[in-house]
């Protein structure tokens, strides 16, 4: 049942869909170029540009609803046209893109609003808003492009802006290191995506979504597998999934909960978007789907376990983000109708995670930037609004009905159990276990922060509630955390069905290993057990210093040794390569000739000069190279004769 993907030409109001990207971009440019002159009003320009983009997004959304073919593209100009290879600078507005646009601009608007107050004492606020706008513009370009090259544009732009945002508080060495780490890990993913795009170009001769999706059926299975794995590598990099998850929690060291949030609620969804968008590619190969599902299941457990051992409020939330995106990967990997469930979870997560991140910011605001949950306690009396809004986020993420997490997460768990072999138990079990663990560590976070005895540091006497500009976004998001799940799960899957090329939520018979009712009951039960256990253990607070712990907890505190893994796989070879090249470039060749006479003794000092500066060693290097090149030529020729 090959279905041809066809996009309609965008007409009328939808023809101006490029404004969505242009408005934040222009605003960022103005803020950067005007410099200090814009310090007094710059942040309001930033807020207004995102607000305008949101209103526009809504308008386009309603336009789209009235259309027959709900996928419209707007070609702006031929970006590259050489021979028969063409890259269109064009945008695609379809149900999937529309959903992301609303998420990015909607949540983005609230964060901007909140940041006006939160950053009010920071002399760099204007600059911060400029990067912020840049980020939103890049993110919108990412989800609006009508081909993979456009997606790559946005992808790179998001990476760049996030590097700037994470490095924003450069006074903290940790922030700089985190920026570097985020950058390097993302580059690994980016390389995957870039090579994937080149493979697409080599095998299909195009990168336009419709042509790629229509052509993928004709590709060899191996090619599809490689292509999909490369795209997946890109997705894991951006979305903080195994094996490239380590940067995301570190990035929470960045300036504020605000930037943490922009990552948690928007940037990390880019990977999910990529896989959802490329659904026809992933659906074409079962091994590929299995890999995506495995990555999701593994990461969701990883995030839960590590999250349970962390004491930094932002880090716990960061690891919970990693884990929740694991659920989304699980969903998109299951294929068929499940990918729509993943998008629902993504949207719902956007609300409750934003709610909790901003809540964490509000707590820090009142507690003199303390982030250690062992040093909170009893805050419910002092920050009523934050407490209540955070509670809705907490109940939503652990999946207590009828809050939003229940409606978005439970169907994914159920779907995982619907696989038709033993893997149903594996993945369903992992998802179920993850639900219990999530309940445990989120309850721990909530109880330690807002209840139990005060364990504050001595300099804090009266924590205060945050000003209105911060609490209003919190309240709005809390409403979303309560209601969004049900609304979304009843409307979004149908809406997404209209996305061309993405197989809709076909109503198949649920023939899972367990009946749906059993799964529902089980998952609620597991959640209650996890939450109850955490409440029982931490109701009286906890020690304010790290305690000796068993093997599992120690491992979890050390991020389950995944950092060591990354170090061994990415960092060490890189460092070795650099050293080796520096060595060869500086004195390797000279040293070869002089024997080791110069010896190791004077070695390091001279090594630092990078190049010896002696013409004779340069000439030697050229000669060696020349001999090698001549030898290689002759060797190739000899092989050719043989």
């Amino acid at each position, binding site marked *: 049942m090959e279905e041809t993907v066809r996009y309609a030409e965008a007409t009328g109001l939808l023809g101006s869909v490029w404004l969505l990207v242009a408005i934040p971009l222009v605003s960022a440019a103005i803020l950067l170029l005007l410099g200090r002159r814009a310090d007094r009003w710059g942040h309001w320009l930033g807020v207004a540009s995102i607000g305008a983009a949101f209103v526009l997004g809504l308008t386009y959304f309603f336009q789209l609803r009235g259309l027959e073919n709900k996928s419209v593209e707007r070609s702006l100009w031929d970006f590259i046209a050489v021979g028969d290879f063409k890259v269109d600078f064009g945008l695609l507005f379809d149900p999937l893109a529309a959903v992301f646009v609303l998420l990015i601009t909607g949540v983005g608007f609230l964060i901007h609003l909140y940041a006006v107050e939160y950053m009010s004492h920071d002399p760099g606020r204007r600059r911060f808003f400029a990067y912020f706008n840049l980020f939103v513009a890049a993110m919108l370009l990412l989800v609006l492009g009508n081909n993979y090259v456009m997606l790559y544009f946005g992808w790179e732009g998001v990476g760049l802006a996030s590097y700037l945002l994470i490095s924003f508080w450069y006074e903290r060495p940790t922030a700089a290191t985190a920026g570097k780490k985020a950058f390097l890990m993302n580059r690994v993913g980016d390389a995957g995506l870039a090579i994937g795009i080149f493979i697409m170009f080599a095998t299909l001769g195009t990168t336009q979504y419709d042509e790629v999706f229509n052509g993928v059926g004709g590709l060899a299975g191996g090619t599809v597998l490689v292509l999909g794995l490369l795209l997946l590598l890109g997705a894991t990099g951006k979305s903080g999934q195994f094996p490239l998850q380590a940067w995301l929690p570190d990035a929470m060291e960045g300036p504020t909960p605000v930037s943490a949030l922009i990552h948690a609620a928007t940037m990390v969804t880019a990977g999910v978007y990529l896989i959802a968008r490329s659904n026809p590619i992933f659906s074409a190969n079962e091994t590929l789907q299995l890999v995506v599902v495995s990555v999701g299941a593994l990461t969701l457990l990883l995030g839960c376990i590590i999250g349970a051992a962390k004491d930094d409020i932002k880090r716990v939330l960061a690891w919970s983000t990693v884990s929740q995106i694991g659920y989304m990967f699980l969903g998109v990997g299951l294929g068929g109708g499940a990918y729509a469930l993943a998008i629902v979870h993504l949207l719902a997560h956007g609300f409750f995670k934003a709610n909790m991140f901003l809540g964490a910011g509000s707590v820090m605001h009142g507690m003199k930037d303390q982030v250690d949950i062992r040093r909170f306690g009893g805050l419910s009396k002092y920050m009523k609004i934050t407490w209540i809004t955070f509670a809705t986020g907490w109940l939503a993420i652990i999946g207590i009905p009828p809050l939003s997490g229940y409606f978005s997460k439970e169907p994914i768990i159920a779907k995982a159990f619907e696989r038709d072999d033993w893997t149903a138990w594996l993945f369903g079990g992992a998802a179920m276990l993850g639900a219990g663990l999530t309940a445990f560590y989120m309850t721990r976070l909530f109880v330690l922060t807002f209840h139990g005895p005060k364990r504050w540091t001595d300099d804090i006497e009266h924590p205060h509630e945050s000003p209105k500009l911060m609490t209003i976004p919190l309240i709005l998001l809390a409403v979303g955390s309560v209601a969004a799940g049900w609304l979304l799960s009843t409307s979004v899957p149908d809406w997404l069905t209209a996305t061309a090329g993405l197989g809709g939520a076909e109503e198949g018979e649920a023939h899972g290993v367990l009946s749906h009712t059993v799964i529902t009951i089980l998952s609620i039960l597991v959640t209650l057990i996890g939450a109850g256990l955490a409440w029982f253990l931490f109701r009286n607070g906890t020690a304010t210093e790290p305690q000796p712990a068993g093997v599992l907890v120690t491992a979890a505190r050390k991020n389950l040794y995944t950092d060591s893994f990354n170090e061994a796989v990415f960092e060490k070879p890189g460092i070795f390569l650099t050293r080796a090249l*520096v060595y060869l470039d500086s004195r390797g060749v000279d040293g070869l000739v002089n024997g080791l006479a110069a010896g190791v003794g004077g070695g390091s000092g001279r090594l630092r000069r*990078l190049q010896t500066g002696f013409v004779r060693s340069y000439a030697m290097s050229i000669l060696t190279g020349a001999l090698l090149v001549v030898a290689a030529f002759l060797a190739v020729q000899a092989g050719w004769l043989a």
Partner: protein
Amino acid sequence: MTELKLPSIDYAALAPILIMLGAALVGVLIEAFVPRRLRHAVQLGAALLAVLAALYFVVDNAGERQITIGGAIAVDGPTLFLQGAILVLAAMALLLIGERSIERGGAFVAQAAVVAGSEDDRRQAEESGGATEVYPLTTFAIGGMLIFVAANDLLTMFISLEVFSLPLYLLCALARRRRLLSQEAAMKYFLLGAYASAFFLFGVALVYGFTSGIPGRTAGVDFATIHAAVADSPSSPVLLYAGMALLAIGLLFKAAAAPFHVWTPDVYQGAPTPVTAFMAACTKVAAFGALLRVFYVAFSGSAWNFTPVLGTVAILTMLVGAVLAVTQTDIKRLLAYSSIANAGYLLVGVLALNKEGLSGTMFYLVAYGFSVLAAFAVVTLVRDADGEATHLSRWAGLGRRSPFFAALFTFILLAFAGIPLTSGFTSKFAVFGAAIEGGQSWLVIAGVLTSMILAFPYLRVVVMMWLSEPGESTPTVSVPGGLTAAALMIGVLATLVLGVAPGPLLDLANGAAEFVR
């Protein structure tokens, strides 16, 4: 006595070359006869005028396809495209070279032998206006490059190689500031350049030997003969491959490909910055123009044999450039390693060995030339009392001091990093796409990976400029004179335009991508 047969000469097709060489001779005369205080203006004006006139004839020759002057010069699409590129980039470099308002007397010293900082040196700075010999030297070099990309036999190629190299060695030695460093760099460049030329010449001799004995042809080093010999020469192929390897070495040296790149950082750092800019942009075009012609016209018959070796060189070059750029602390050395890495990407385009590869490489050369000229233009502006402040630590917080120039430089660095909507992205995309088409996926994978590494040092500079507080030692950016400002703006605008709408130039390159044999 046999009748002497004169080769036919198409003067119109040779006009750009003749104009540049003629202008160089006129420049020497100007040195002799024009009074000192007028000399600078007259020289600069004459050089620019010559470049524009040559450019006019290049445009006028569009569509020309012929081999003239006894088979020595080929005028075809790639020749004209690359000549045009060299001339445009050289005009920008001349603007930088001619800048006098930033430093008294300009970047070049008239009597380099005077001890730096001495009483004599001070007097010299006040009295003589700085070296005006740089203009004829530059025009000679440009003339040599124009022949180099058009040369249709190996001897013409060798001679033009020397014609453009010798003035460059001299130019490198003329820095007013850090004079000893500059002279040391020139000495190194000269010694190593001569050394590499010897390889090239030896290669020519071996290839000549290989071409003897083909039925119905006399031996020779013109590309058509070599092409025929590759197909059916009775001589030992060892001659061919050893010769081809040695020729490649000579050219790769000029192109700054590893492991023949060792001179690059020292020379780029030591040479006066306008000359570095000229070398980074124009020498690159000339070297790759020659590489393209040698491998696409003369040796195309043995592509299977040279691609693995040159591919390895390309990967090594990208790796060395990218990885060592990470450890650099001097902006000029950083740009030197970036130039090495870019040589690697260009080689990927060359090795695609198809029409797209040819046009992509030519596009890349133009795009990179504009960006690198703009980058060095900014380097000439960031200075303190002791001249240019090239150590990277001095650039910290530059974004606060001079947001405008820091923003321009940031844009250029983003282009080098290959961020989309800059020419850095489109040009990389063009060569990588061509290489994929040509079946060289391994090179593309290496290229993508190294460009990911290479983005890091660039972005580190960006972050340093914008996110660090200016220190005590952060210099301010000098207000550029009109010439530097013009070169800088042209470079930045070209980087933007080629990034957003590369279509017209790509079409032009594509239309020009056919060699005459």
